[in-house]
């Protein structure tokens, strides 16, 4: 079981799409308004930083539950990286540096999962 999920996890980076509509969506025409694309980048980045921070909290919860030192170490590194990403996003930094940090976070999580499965 563990290995099955691990295999899926390690091999996965796909975005799943469903092919057929399942909901009874109602295409009713309602008064349209335009989303203002000029809304501040900083504001949106700040919102994203909140979500990143939430993820960091989840990692801490996960660390508490773990006993494998190596797994704990890796998850702590993940937490640090997430804190960095949170700070960057708070400052409105959505450039390559932040994206690279997020990629590193993902890879570290994979590493932790792999370590756990062994």
């Amino acid at each position, binding site marked *: *079981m*563990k290995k*099955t*999920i*691990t295999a*899926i*996890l390690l091999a*996965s*980076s*796909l*975005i*799943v*799409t*469903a*092919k057929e*509509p*399942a*909901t*009874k*969506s*109602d*295409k*009713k*025409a*309602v*008064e*349209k*308004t*335009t*989303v*203002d*694309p*000029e809304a501040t*980048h900083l504001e*949106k*980045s700040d*919102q*994203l930083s909140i*979500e*990143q921070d939430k*993820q960091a909290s*989840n*990692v801490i919860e*996960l660390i508490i539950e*773990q006993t494998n030192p190596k797994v704990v170490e890796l998850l702590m590194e993940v937490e640090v990286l997430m804190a960095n*990403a949170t700070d960057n*996003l708070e400052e409105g930094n*959505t*450039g390559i540096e*932040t*994206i690279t940090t*997020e*990629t590193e976070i*993902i890879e570290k*999580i*994979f590493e*932790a*999962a792999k370590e*756990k*499965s062994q």
Partner: protein
Amino acid sequence: MNRNSKDNTTPIPEELQKQLAGFQKSLWRIKITEAILAGLFGLITSFLIVFAIERIDEMPPTVRLVILLAGTSLAVLFAPYWVRRWVYGHKREVQLARLIAKKFPKLGDRLVGVVELQDQKQSEEVFSDELRQAAMVHVANQAAKRDMTEALPGSRNRKLALGLGVVGAAITAGFALAPKAGSNAFQRWINPFSNVNHYTFTQLDTEKIPNPMVVPLGEPFSITAPLSEQTDRRPETASAQYGDQTPITSGLAENTSYTFDFKGQEVQSDVTIKAGDTKHRVTIKPLTRPEVTGFDAVVTLPDYLQLPPRNIDIRTGALSAVEGSKIELTGTFDRDLSKISSTLIPVEKETPLDPNPPLAETTGESTSDKTDGEPKEGEEPEKEPLPQPSPLRMAINGNQATSSPFTLASHNAKIPFDWTDVNGLDSEATFNLSVTSLTDLKPNPYTRGVDRNLMILDGKAIEFEISAEDDFGLQEIGLEWRGELHSGSTGKPAAGSVPFELGSPSSSRLTKEISFSHKEYGISPQTIYLRSYAIDYKPERGPVYSEPIILTILTKEQHSEMIKNDFDRLISKLEDITRRELENLDANERLDQFKTPEALQTPESRKELAESEAREAENKERAKDLKEKMEELFQEAARNEDIPKESMKKMADTMKNLQELAEQDLPEVEQKLSDAQSSKSTPEKSKKDLKEAIEKQKDAIEKMRETIEKANKASEDFEAATFVNRLKEAARGEDRIVSTLREAMLGSLSPKADYITGAKEAAGNLDPTHKRTLSDLENQQKEITTEVRWIKEELGSFFSRTQKEEHGKVFEHMNETRIDEKLEELRQILSPDVAKSFQSQKFASEHAETLNEWAKLLEGSQDEDGGGGGGGGGGGSQEDEDFEFMLKVMKMVRAEQDIRSRTRSLEQLRRALELKKGKAENKNN
């Protein structure tokens, strides 16, 4: 006087002197006359020779010179010599005496003696003067008896005079008969190297005969030799000879000219034309006709395209350019030209097919709304009449000819070119240039790497590529979206656009990888019609859109339902695989039951086993495919926090079993069937393999059945969870109605409007804003009512299948309370015609509470089921803990991937805004 020293001479007698003087005078007269006559004869004769010969043929100047010199030599050389010889050579008496001695020797000798005596100078003692005197007298007396004129040399004067008379007469006659010829001959005789042309009686107008004459190589040609107006004779025929070929003749046409037709020639030579006594030589140069060596067009595109002029080789005779371009044509030829002509002939254009037809109506707008002024569907475009053909001005510069620039209109054109070189040769054929006027086509935007119709969970970003191509340049590409609310939507329909890449006049293709996160654009769950757009440089065209991507952003509840439905479909596929496996098993059991080990080795049995193996392989592939789809579904489900952990666990179990079936169990069956049919096996081995295959197949089928059972259980859990979510969603819908009414009643929606109440105002007096609000709320309530009806129906069906108590209770409550009827009543009093706002608010609030209670009831039962479903006491097994860890990790990965996609999307948005800003600044500058 001293006789011894004195020198004395004795003159000859006077009579003798007189006689000698007379003789001398006669001699001189005769010889001078001879000299004169001889000179004249020579001159006149040489002239006569020239005159006569030139009547036959033209004499070269050198020959005429020789004749002239020969003629003048008698006058210039002979006469002086003759005078010198006879006048100066017979000036003294002794010379005369010697001349006389030739005729009269004795007398002559004595005369010589006398003359010598006269001149001797001796002294008296030697010569006696009287003796000398006596001797001289004696000789004188003898001489006096003779006629000295008889001693004169023979005279040729008569012959010369006669000859002179003859030639003179001939000349005179010639001049009388042909004065022009005579005059011409005289001029040519007296000055052999003068430019005086040879006179002939027949004269051609040589100025009208080109010389040299260039003719097309290998092609027949003709020469026309007209007679001059001054000609004295007009021969009936004339001949012309090309080199040493056979001469051809021509008659005199209309009394004025001769025309000679020659076959094609390839070697240069002279044509000698003979007409009467005249001859004329024309040099013929065969040459190829002038050809085009290069033809280019310089196309200056319309200003709005902002592209540099293009140089195009048009030797093929075809040129295409966009309407509005300025075109300049330059032809290069293999030799200099003297003339070139061309005409611009407008040609009707065929209406082209539009490669980018307007999109079908999706959101009420189509691309034709935003394109340039092209005719709408069903409308015939107005046709302007074609202009008249007009000459195209060409300037020649050596071997090049350039047209004046012309602007390409909306119609096509044909331009024929004809030219003549400096030798007078025309082109072999007309060079026809076809000019096609192109329309600046709309750009072609498209998206790649994403399905046309997809559903995603709220918060997930999608990544794909937008591209566009244009025949010239693209200004920018971007994304545009318009939203439509669905039943799970809470916000307002989204609409917006953002540029992602700026182009340039030379960018005919732009591509951009997009990470689209709807959250970053403030888009709440709804259906989004997402289109990429492209803008080219054509004025007033606007953006052209791609086929839309229909992106449905689902709420968590909707997403759960979607996962559940997909899961059910996968279970059906597993059932189908199981059924096929059962059929395979039956076939194998028949083989085992009815065939002996030896019979299994026959070709027919082997064939059956092979077919069974093939069917097994197919089923294995189906199982693999199903496993992959299940994995994908599992990953998607992991995104949704609302999907219970137990459901996820059951999905994972299903996935595990499928993996074992696909990678282990079914391949083993396949292998055994392969072994059973092996020719190397013994009959007993084959039988054994077949039996083992059957056993394994039974195990596999059992596992399939267990998996289906577990999966159905998981599906039930899903369904149960969705009831909770859907009831909660319906309750939220009612809450929204309550809050909207509250806002309207407090006047927050429209500061100027009075608060709306059904108690105080008649429906007809409602403010339009409130009317609209109530209308919207009525529609929302209608959707909630429909949804709750569905929930009730499905709940009933679920209960009858599962007999779950809580679900039965809720179903019963729903029936007892007649919730669907009450919701319908609420809808009616919400309508603008009724507008019982206070009551509506109260009822909506009550219904929301009821729906929430039912959701809690079901949720509670779900938690109990989940907890008892194999969790065990003491926190669950190690396997469950590991699974939970992995699930959390997977969700974390998914969440982090989403954050990364959204970060990318934000970054792209930031860059796009900078692009927009930069573009606006450029425009202002």
